[in-house]
């Protein structure tokens, strides 16, 4: 206790003097903002959180302050892009363990600072699964401190004091104090050791598991007050847009800014130098126009004359590239997983079924195009932007500008969608570079929709080929899956031309089938554009191909697709890949003991989705049901789509039933909204999603040629069925796993309705021709 006492005071005093609390400090009261060294989370189960860069934090000093009037201020350190996780669900976990009245909680956004806040990279459906345990501990620690303070005030034993809904109650006498009344004294107390903390019994939860907390920014969003990166306004601000190399890796031969500089309002034209591959998140070569307004900057950009050298990727052509990937899959590739002897079994099979599938590049197209504002004053840089990884962006910006990280402050505002695009901070680096050119004035770089579509970090393009061998009894005895797709790693390192361990774990090597001979191989595929994470990543392509292929086999064998899928998965068991894979299985970064591959849970979501959708019911002509299931982000999802296809090939989706098993469901209401949204995003990529390249250039530009599903094409009803678990079942991902099963379930439904099999996304006009 003494040890913690001293170290606590020391750190808090230092921190207070440095004024770090400025942003969150309410008037007086408990204001703490440092991590107490030496206190570790008392974890019921291990997660991959500690392995993330800068890990997690559990200390209430970092995330929490209580003012004298009882207002509880919670710092949201992760990025809010629409899941509700960062600014609602995670603070709600703290508030629940604190037994705070949510009406008296306010949320402030933390700056990009992972040394202080732990990992802030909001990606990979990790927020709740990595932070539920640390933040429960955080809230319970603060509750302990308040109870101690009240006991001291009353001079009673702390066992007689209980924190109840923003009040401290002395049980024997019924005396009460508000949280704010003892906040100051609580501030002087040590943070408890892990063994002193009492977590709530789940029966006492007020918010967790309930879904009764509206998203924090609801009022601001519905009144136009919510501020996103595009909306940042600073006094004396300049506005900039950038003309970027149309081909990744291109450079500027020469440019003529004279006409641009004549546009009224244009003040300066600045070159942005490219970074040789692998460029990570560094900007493309570009010419920036800085002006008094966005409109003037846009007009100035139109007037630029630029001669580009298109560089090494100038002949990237999506048609030719698809042929190359298909070809790669026709010869043996790098073995990624092997069971038995699939080649031999294919040779002796009574029947072999072979199919090929294709999923193209996709753009994220968040409704808010990327934007960032930066200001450089006296050697200190401030950035305001919408960033999925504000801490990582801070480091990348400092590195590019040759600055000390301590001299860079990153203020993260709301993200108007992210989907992986805003994990890459090229736009914030652009703003930071331009801030050196404005004589100390802040400058906002706004990307247009065309910029966003043409200069993305695209979802990879994937060709998958399957050969399944059947014995004389029509039993599947062998399965060979070859997959070729350029790797995300090419953005960060010399191009490996094969999937690296993370991509292998995104739905490729973990096919959970009970087949005696099984091999998964990857073909060589070189990247010619910037490849990045897109919501659900490689799971999108592999769930599409695998779940389509299973349904195709069922049809060949005259079997019900749901029954056949369950048969291939086999009995409920824990799948152990360790002796089958050639690269250690990634498991989304989670310990396999906490998050095993449990075919029982996969089977269960299939059964739930089938039951709730009334699978097997007779459908009128032109209507069909399709099913698909996939485990991703250590969550199990099964989806049944009901589709109608009219004589002209026009689709309408009557109903979607999705069953999700994401362990303990912390915020069921937001889980529902994520799954409803995932259905629409899945439908968009299935029907329209395609980025193509010709002569190295992206051919699409805006929502006319990169279409999104609109309300009149959206599913009439998406019904979400959450598998219930207690808190002992580890919470798993929610933001992404709803997407992958949608496209195959839809295409399987289309087949049921029409007999037409879609093997290449997007569906586009394939049904009308």
């Amino acid at each position, binding site marked *: 206790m003494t040890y913690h006492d001293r170290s606590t005071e020391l750190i808090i005093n230092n921190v207070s003097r440095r004024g770090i609390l400025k942003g969150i400090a309410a008037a007086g009261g408990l204001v703490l903002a440092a991590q107490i060294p030496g206190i570790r989370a008392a974890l019921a189960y291990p997660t991959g959180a500690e392995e993330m860069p800068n890990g997690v934090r559990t200390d209430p000093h970092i995330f929490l302050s209580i003012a004298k009037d009882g207002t509880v201020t919670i710092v949201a350190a992760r990025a809010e*892009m*629409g*899941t*509700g996780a960062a600014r609602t669900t995670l603070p709600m976990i703290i508030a629940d363990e604190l037994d705070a009245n949510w009406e008296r909680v306010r949320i402030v956004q933390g700056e990009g600072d992972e040394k202080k806040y732990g990992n802030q990279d909001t990606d990979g459906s990790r927020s709740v699964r990595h932070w539920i345990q640390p933040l429960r501990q955080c809230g319970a620690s603060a509750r302990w401190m308040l109870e101690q303070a009240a006991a001291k005030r009353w001079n009673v034993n702390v066992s007689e004091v209980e924190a109840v809904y923003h009040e401290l109650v002395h049980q024997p006498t019924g005396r009460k104090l508000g949280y704010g009344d003892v906040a100051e004294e609580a501030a002087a107390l040590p943070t408890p050791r892990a063994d002193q903390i009492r977590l709530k019994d789940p029966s006492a939860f007020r918010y967790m598991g309930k879904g009764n907390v*509206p*998203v924090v*920014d*609801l*009022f601001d*969003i*519905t*009144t*136009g*007050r*919510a*501020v*996103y990166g*595009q*909306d940042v*306004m600073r006094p004396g601000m300049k*506005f900039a847009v950038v003309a970027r190399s149309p081909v990744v890796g291109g450079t500027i031969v020469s440019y003529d800014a004279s006409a641009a500089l004549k546009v*009224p*309002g244009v003040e300066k034209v600045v070159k942005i130098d490219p970074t040789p591959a692998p460029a990570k998140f560094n900007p493309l070569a570009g010419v920036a126009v800085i002006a008094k*307004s*966005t*409109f*003037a900057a846009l007009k100035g950009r139109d007037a630029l004359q630029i001669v580009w050298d298109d560089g090494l990727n100038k002949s990237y052509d999506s048609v030719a590239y698809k042929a190359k990937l298909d070809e790669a899959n026709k010869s043996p590739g790098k073995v990624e997983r092997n069971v038995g002897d699939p080649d031999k079994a294919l040779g002796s099979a009574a029947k072999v079924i072979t199919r090929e599938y294709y999923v193209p590049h996709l753009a994220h*197209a*968040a*409704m*808010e*195009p990327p934007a960032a504002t930066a200001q450089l004053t006296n050697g200190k840089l401030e950035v305001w932007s919408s960033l999925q990884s504000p801490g990582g962006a801070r480091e990348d910006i400092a590195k590019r500008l040759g600055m000390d990280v301590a001299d860079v402050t990153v203020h993260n505002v*709301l993200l*108007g*969608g992210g*989907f992986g695009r805003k994990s890459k901070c090229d736009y914030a680096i652009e703003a930071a570079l331009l801030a050196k050119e404005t004589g100390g004035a802040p400058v906002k770089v706004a990307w*247009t*929709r065309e910029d966003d579509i043409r200069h993305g970090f695209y979802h990879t393009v994937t060709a998958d080929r399957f050969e399944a061998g059947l014995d004389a009894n029509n039993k599947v005895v062998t399965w060979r899956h070859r997959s070729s797709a350029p790797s995300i790693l090419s953005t960060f390192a010399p191009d490996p031309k094969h999937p690296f361990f993370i991509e292998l774990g995104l739905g490729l090597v973990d096919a959970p089938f009970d087949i005696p001979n099984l091999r998964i191989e990857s073909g060589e595929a070189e990247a010619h554009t910037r490849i990045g994470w897109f919501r659900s990543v490689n799971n999108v392509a592999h769930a599409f191909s695998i779940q389509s292929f299973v349904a195709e086999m069922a049809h060949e064998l005259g079997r019900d697709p749901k029954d056949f899928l369950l048969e291939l998965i086999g009995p409920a068991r824990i799948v152990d890949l360790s002796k089958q894979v050639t690269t250690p299985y990634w498991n989304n970064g989670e310990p396999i003991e906490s998050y095993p591959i449990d075919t029982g849970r996969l089977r269960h979501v299939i059964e739930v989705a089938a039951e709730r959708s009334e699978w097997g019911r007779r459908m009128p002509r032109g209507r069909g049901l399709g099913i698909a299931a996939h485990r991703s982000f250590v969550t199990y999802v099964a989806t049944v789509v009901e589709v109608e296809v009219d004589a002209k090939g026009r689709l309408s989706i009557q109903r979607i039933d999705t069953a999700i098993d994401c362990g303990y469901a912390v915020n069921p*209401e937001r889980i529902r*909204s*994520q799954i*409803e*949204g*995932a*259905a*629409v*995003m899945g439908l*968009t990529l299935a029907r329209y999603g395609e980025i193509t390249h010709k002569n190295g250039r992206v051919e699409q530009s*805006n*929502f*006319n040629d990169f279409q*999104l*599903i*609109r*309300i*009149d094409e*959206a*599913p009439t*009803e*998406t019904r979400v069925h959450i598998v219930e678990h207690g808190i002992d079942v580890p919470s798993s991902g929610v933001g992404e796993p709803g997407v992958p099963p949608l496209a195959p379930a839809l295409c399987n439904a289309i087949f049921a309705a029409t007999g037409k099999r879609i093997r290449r996304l997007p569906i586009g006009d394939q049904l009308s021709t």
Partner: protein
Amino acid sequence: MANIQVNGQERTFEGDPSMPLMWYLRDELGLTGTKFGCGVALCGACTVHINGDAVRACAIQMSDVAGKKVVTIEGLDPNGRHPVQVAWRDLGVPQCGYCQAGQIMNAAALLAKTPAPTDTEIDAAMAGNLCRCGCYQRIHAAVRAASKGA
């Protein structure tokens, strides 16, 4: 020079008459509730009311709004309690929220003219407003909840 009324306030604009209303609202008046989404009237994020009609502010020039009354999301209701805004909150419509101001402005204009729209009318009227998060099911339900037919 153009005189316009924005959220009840008279304004005089002396800049480039070809500037889209959206940039005037955002960059000059700081009314950033009108969002920039596509710039070519394909997404509806910048929807405002001009003399009561839902209009994409990115696709109308300042010279075309002279003498007209513009209402943005900030001016829809002084307390943010327009029935559409209330329905949006009651049903927890938004995810990221970026498109929602445009959705709300579009829905408010629809209901002002068609107080009890059919499902088909709702979809047809709202089809110009994109939502990448995919909140359409709740958008539809919220328009219905705010309508006279609810």
